[in-house]
């Protein structure tokens, strides 16, 4: 039975191979749903018959790489659920929202899905790294899918940062494996590590999480991708960083270090950073991306106190509840942008109203309105954190919640400006049955967002969950009040470019380039002068070409080649002679 775990992520790869068949390449989108079947089967099995599937480790592929193993336990089951819901919705929405280059989209989608399922189930570091990088790098194909200039720029920044993260993470993983002598993750959690190893691991994952200053790819990539892909990027992928921190860093011995405190403050900072710059955006998807950064702040903060606790596993379940909440809501919100843009849908009064109601529910849930999942998880997290003796004042957390609420108000406003509020000329086109069906799946997600905390609380039997409702209500109310004041006072709107500090980076880069070019120019001028005055300057002729070619030409000259031969030979003799 446990060998099924491996097939969950291998199956999408097999489906991707089917794309080699031209017939399937033309009808690629249904394959995306096909790819999810084994994963659903495993999830359902583990839900229905926990004894059969839970807590099992699949080592059928131990011959592969450095000995792969995958496991299913309470934590990975919960993450698997989130992953499945968001990816399935994305697959469904791809049916109606992605029409160009379907085969290519499907390929990257499947690869990325496979990676996403792999890191969820990974029980060894190499599998986690594999899944993580497969997901990240394949998602590049989703980011650039639209092919616009904007998408290309986003893709470039995405790839640059993803690769840097990848390599840093790789170094960290190799070093940690050498440190602990194993790649089995369960053994990593209790072994303290050298600081720089932990920093490498942390940094590699921090890029994915979108920690301020490393987040610049995020507000570019999430809006640039097609709507279903943005839902996945924001709903699932960025959380890989958090679970990576949990799995790869030694959580059980963190309490003695400064890491938890650092994470607590970083979390709060991230909450505000995301919210402040999010408020200065005018594109709904960019705004949602900033909101994701802000929400990641909660997870960072949460991980901080989880590390502080004596029994981190219990806290981790609360964190995954928060991740589930955010993943579902944010996925739904990104998809809602797509539906609001569907002018045909918006032409049908009933559907239009329902869509806006859905948007409202999702936005309020994220803002933490009482009786929604947002309120439940935030209150519970705060309560747990107080129990554990977290250092961050709860006022700050309340302000963080307020910022989210403000962001959501702004989101709805921006979304309304998008043109969805009134039917356009194109609105006469008829809706296909498929579109309606997919729309219903989105409505179902909204329903799920409303329902799951109730089910979860009854399941967990927690008593104090709704006690913070007043706080949630207060934050939403304050937000509305602030917005109303803002409007009354008619202050001009501020805008920040997507990626905020990215502008700074680019300026620095351009400046450095300019400085370099100036120096380069003066160097060339001097050489030219030298060439004029020195008869034997051999390569004056070559100065016209680029220095790259020039140096290669020089290196290829026989005098240089023979000099190289002799120099290396003498260098070797000398180096041996010195030691022997």
């Amino acid at each position: 039975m446990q060998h099924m775990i491996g097939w969950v992520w291998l199956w999408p790869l097999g489906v991707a191979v089917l794309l080699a068949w031209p017939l399937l390449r033309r009808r690629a989108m249904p394959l995306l749903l096909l790819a999810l079947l084994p994963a659903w089967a495993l999830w359902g099995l583990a839900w229905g018959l926990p004894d059969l599937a839970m807590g099992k480790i699949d080592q059928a592929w131990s011959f592969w790489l450095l000995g792969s193993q995958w496991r299913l336990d309470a934590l990975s089951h919960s993450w698997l659920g989130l992953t499945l819901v968001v990816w399935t919705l994305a697959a469904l929405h791809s049916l109606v929202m992605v029409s160009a280059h379907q085969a290519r989209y499907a390929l990257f989608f499947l690869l990325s899905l496979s990676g996403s399922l792999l890191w969820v189930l990974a029980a060894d570091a190499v599998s986690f790294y594999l899944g993580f990088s497969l997901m990240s790098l394949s998602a590049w194909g989703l980011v650039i899918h639209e092919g616009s200039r904007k998408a290309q720029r986003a893709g470039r920044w995405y790839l640059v940062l993803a690769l840097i993260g990848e390599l840093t993470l790789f170094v960290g993983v190799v070093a940690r494996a050498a440190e602990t002598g194993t790649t089995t993750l369960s053994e990593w959690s209790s072994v303290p590590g050298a600081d720089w190893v932990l920093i490498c691991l942390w940094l590699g994952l921090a890029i994915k999480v979108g920690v301020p200053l490393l987040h610049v790819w995020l507000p570019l990539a999430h809006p640039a991708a097609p709507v279903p892909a943005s839902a996945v990027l924001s709903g699932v992928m960025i959380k890989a960083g958090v679970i990576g921190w949990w799995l790869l860093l030694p959580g059980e011995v963190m309490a003695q270090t400064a890491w938890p405190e650092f994470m607590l403050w970083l979390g709060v900072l991230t909450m505000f950073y995301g919210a402040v710059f999010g408020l200065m955006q005018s594109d709904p998807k960019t705004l949602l991306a900033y909101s994701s950064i802000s929400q990641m702040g909660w997870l960072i903060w949460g991980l901080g106190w989880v590390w502080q606790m004596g029994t981190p596993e219990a806290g981790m379940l609360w964190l995954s509840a928060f991740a589930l909440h955010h993943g579902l809501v944010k996925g739904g919100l990104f998809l809602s942008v797509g539906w609001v843009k569907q002018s045909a849908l918006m032409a049908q009064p009933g559907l239009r109203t329902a869509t806006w109601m859905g948007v409202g529910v999702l936005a309020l849930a994220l803002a933490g309105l009482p009786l929604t999942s947002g309120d439940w998880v935030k209150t519970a997290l705060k309560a747990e954190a107080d129990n554990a003796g977290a250092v961050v004042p709860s006022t700050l957390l309340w302000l963080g919640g307020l910022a989210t609420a403000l962001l959501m108000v702004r989101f709805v406003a921006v979304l309304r400006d998008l043109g969805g509020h009134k039917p356009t000329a194109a609105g006469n086109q008829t809706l296909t049955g498929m579109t309606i069906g997919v729309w219903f799946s989105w409505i179902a997600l909204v329903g799920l967002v409303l329902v799951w905390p109730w089910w979860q609380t009854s399941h967990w039997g927690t008593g104090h969950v709704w006690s913070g409702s007043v706080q949630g209500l207060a934050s939403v109310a304050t937000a509305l009040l602030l917005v109303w004041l803002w409007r009354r006072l008619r202050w001009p709107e501020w805008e920040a470019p997507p990626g905020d500090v990215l502008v700074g980076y680019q300026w620095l880069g351009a400046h450095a380039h300019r400085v370099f070019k100036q120096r380069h120019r003066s160097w060339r001028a001097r050489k030219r002068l030298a060439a004029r005055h020195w008869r034997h300057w051999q390569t004056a002729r070559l100065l016209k070409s680029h220095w790259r070619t020039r140096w290669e030409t020089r290196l290829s000259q026989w005098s240089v080649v023979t000099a190289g031969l002799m120099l290396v030979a003498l260098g070797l003799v000398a180096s041996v002679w010195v030691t022997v």
Partner: protein
Amino acid sequence: MLDAILTLLILALAWHCVRTTDLFEAIVVFIALGMLVALAWTRLQAPDAALAEAAIGAGLAGALLLASLRQMPEMSATRAPGAKTTGLGWFWWGLWGALGLALVSGVAAIQTTSVSLMPQVQAHLSDSGVTHPVTAVLLNFRALDTALELAVLLWAWMAQKQLFVPGRQTVYPLQGQVLKTAVKALLPLMVLVAVYLLWRGSSAPGGAFQSGAVLASAWLMLWLAQLPGLSRKQGGMRLGIQAGWLGGVTVFLLVGLLGVFQGAGFMGYPPDQAGAWILLIESAAALSIGLLLASMVLVSMPDFQEGTL
């Protein structure tokens, strides 16, 4: 004293050969250098190597060089377009001097060492099928070296055939009645010399290489004398030539495989049959070397036309 003078002469010629700006002069000096080097090698008790160097390293190489030079008239000027006199800086000369000094001290250090494989060679000479140690090493103890060296020759020829450029000039007045007669008279004599060298190789300096070099000059003379006559119509001749090219390597390697069959190991012979097999291989090798070297020189002739070989 003679050695010192010879050495100085060799070094002076070598220096001139790489210094001169006239390619023709460089080649002539190079041929003379080859001859002097061969002379020096006889002083080092290496008559086999000296013979081979004189015949192949100086003679045939010289013919090849001179023939090729004629095909690059526009490049034979003192300076090829694009190339320039590279001034080698003090850094280069420093490296050169240091490496030279290092080498001299290294070689001086082993001048008196007395390690050698000769006792081993002599101990096994009676099992090798020949009595001349050099031939024993070449054809028996290190037979695969020699087989692959024939392969190098064959593959170099294969490459040349593919690089072949049809001659542009047709002024090479070698054909003539006098020449033909002379060749006819000389040819049997040269073949005789070649056979003698081959035969002698089993017991004294000589063997496939030297014999092959003589055969090469014989072939060359024959072909040069009747170049126009030697064309496609002589199908049997062509087949023979082709078989001759391949013969050396194929016979050698097949006999080598036969060794496995006979229990003497790959590239080995049963001691009692070794002499006969070696003679067979040497004959095929001499024929091959002769034909290949002659062909190489022939295609480099300016008036060589495709289809003759």
